[in-house]
């Protein structure tokens, strides 16, 4: 990676290489025992809820494109990114936190005019929810392969195909052929756009391949959830039949995703409104492990995890309330995760959440601004309690009663979160909520019904022999000096 970076930098004077990127770094001393983030995740707005980040985007013009020219052109792109910066987070800027996330070659005016071919990583999105740093309408996030993008003033058409196996499974790679595409229409230039698309992944049964999808027959869902499959088997058949534990049966797996987009604006004070929708059938999980008679026992769980779906909708609008003086961005997100196999245990695969974030940025001068953002969010677990509201909340319960065999956790199935962030902002390049660089001095506060609803290092158990006492707090305050820059 370093060699690639140096190679690009070394030829920058030739005018056909470019290094761009993004950095986000913050000092957020947390005096309440937290890790420097106001809340758990960016459902409450990305501001103060995301950590450090660094990204370098490298481009080299192998065959430089000329204006209004139909000659072939080609560029190679590489992106290195990761979530750590020295002195700003626990990973200390370690390169282990970074990855070569994108490498692709784009070529245009080859074979077909107006078509850009891309080989390599293929991630493509229809837009962004900037307040949340979420992109529901994304395809090929996991895919390496080939795509063709046709663009005219009124139409953008993308089709692609490749393999998502390495991104999904890593060392447990199994081929995951992926096809998909998007289409976007400019119905009224600068005022109205409509888009949609999707992708399909198919993972076929390959007999004998340990990384292919399988299911272990004859095991019970609840036993699996409790980690008691081996125990149940031994109780039923005895240790002398341990070697006859059922072997896995091959399965075919698939996943798909449908996305939609509606954008409009350029009317009066409305700068733009983005609406995104995605509905996906998730890939089933491969396996989990238990121990039987001191030996690891792999359980293949295709049939227990093949009914997981995710619906996500998000909207974000930007309004110029008072030109040159006050801008507003207002966003909302709704998510519904369902697991058709699971009716008994709270899980991230069986929940809904909704949130709204409102950010105002006032411009006393061109470069000195004032920011205020507030958010309200509600997360609900479909299968019962999953949040602890108090330091002495019970861990396992059922119907509100202590139950060591219960599958619930804590004393509430709902987490309500409110946040407020305010402070001055310096933006040397001028006005604009999304203009960067942005140097901010922010105060943020959060109220949550969950106890210590932020990354922390508190003792959670209520053991009488704990060395450290339990802490109960629902308010969280953070001061931050932070910078964010695109370049």
């Amino acid at each position: 990676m370093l060699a690639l970076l140096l190679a690009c930098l070394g030829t920058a004077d030739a005018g056909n290489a470019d290094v761009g990127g993004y950095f986000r770094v913050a000092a957020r001393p947390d005096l309440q025992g937290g890790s420097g983030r106001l809340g758990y995740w960016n459902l409450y707005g990305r501001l103060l809820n995301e950590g450090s980040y660094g990204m370098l985007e490298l481009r080299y013009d192998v065959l430089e494109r000329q204006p209004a020219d139909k000659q072939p052109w080609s560029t190679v792109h590489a992106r290195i990114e990761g979530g750590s910066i020295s002195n700003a987070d626990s990973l200390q800027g370690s390169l282990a936190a970074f990855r070569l996330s994108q490498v692709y070659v784009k070529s245009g005016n080859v074979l077909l005019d107006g078509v850009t071919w891309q080989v390599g990583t293929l991630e493509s999105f229809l837009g962004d929810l900037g307040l949340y740093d979420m992109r529901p309408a994304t395809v090929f996030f996991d895919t390496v392969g080939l795509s063709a993008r046709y663009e005219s003033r009124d139409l953008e058409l993308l089709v692609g195909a490749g393999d998502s196996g390495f991104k999904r499974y890593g060392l447990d790679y199994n081929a995951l052929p992926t096809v998909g595409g998007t289409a976007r229409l400019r119905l009224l230039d600068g005022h109205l756009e409509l888009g949609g698309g999707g992708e399909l992944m198919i993972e076929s049964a390959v007999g004998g391949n340990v990384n292919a999808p399988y299911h272990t027959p004859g095991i019970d869902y609840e036993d699996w959830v409790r980690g008691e499959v081996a125990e149940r088997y031994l109780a039923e058949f005895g240790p002398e039949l341990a070697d006859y534990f059922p072997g896995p049966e091959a399965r075919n797996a698939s996943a798909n995703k449908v996305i939609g987009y509606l954008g409009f604006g350029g009317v009066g004070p409305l700068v733009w409104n983005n609406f995104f929708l995605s509905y996906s059938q998730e890939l089933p999980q491969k396996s989990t492990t238990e121990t039987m008679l001191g030996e690891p026992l792999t359980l293949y769980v295709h049939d227990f995890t093949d009914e997981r779906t995710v619906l996500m909708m998000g909207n974000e609008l930007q309004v110029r309330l008072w030109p040159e003086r006050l801008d507003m961005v207002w966003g909302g997100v709704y998510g519904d995760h369902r697991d058709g196999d699971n009716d008994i245990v709270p899980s991230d695969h069986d929940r809904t959440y909704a949130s709204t974030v409102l950010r105002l940025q006032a411009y006393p001068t061109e470069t000195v601004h004032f920011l205020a953002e507030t958010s309200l969010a509600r997360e609900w677990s479909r299968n019962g309690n999953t949040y602890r509201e108090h330091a002495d909340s019970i861990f396992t319960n059922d119907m509100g009663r202590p139950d060591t065999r219960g599958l619930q956790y804590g004393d509430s199935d709902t987490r309500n979160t409110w946040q407020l962030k305010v402070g001055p902002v310096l933006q040397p390049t001028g006005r604009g909520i999304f203009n960067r660089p942005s140097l901010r001095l922010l105060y943020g506060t959060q109220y949550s019904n969950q106890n210590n609803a932020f990354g922390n290092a508190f003792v959670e158990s209520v053991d009488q022999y704990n060395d450290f006492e339990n802490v109960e707090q629902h308010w969280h305050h953070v001061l931050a000096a932070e910078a964010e820059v695109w370049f």
Partner: protein
Amino acid sequence: MRWMLPLLLVGCLKPGPKRMVETAEPVRLVTVLGSYESEAVEELPPSVVARVSEELQARQLQPEAVGLFAEAFGVRRTVPARLEVLEEAGIAQPVLMVSCDPRFDTQVNGRFRWQVDCSVALSAADAEGGLEQGTLGASAHLVYYHQQEAEAVEEVSALVGREVGRVLDRWLATRGVPEAP
């Protein structure tokens, strides 16, 4: 709000121009926004033209818009070729021409990245070699897909203005205009 006062004061402090002529002088101003997708050209967005004009006015130079030679500029993309067009049209010097040719680069983590290449050319008899030039290669990270060439230049307008200032100061220096105290 009193604690914000020092910040606001600092925000209002802008460095003045390095050089300024004693009495107002006219400068013909031409701005050109090109596209990689077609030969069509247009003028730079009004906010960018305003920023360029500010740089001129800060030096007591009065911008006089001379319009766009769209057809000729569409096929002649280089600075010398376009200055020739202006000369043939009898546009009096000094002429300041600011040209930008943004091109879409790639999608990057939620943004639409554009490469914005601009040239600033001041053609004047008293410039060294008759021409003072500057170039700018910047990137713009636009939030929305519908934003195109004009918005990409607007995003880097502070850099365009600064490059215009540099070119003007170099030209004024060759004329012997002293630095502002």
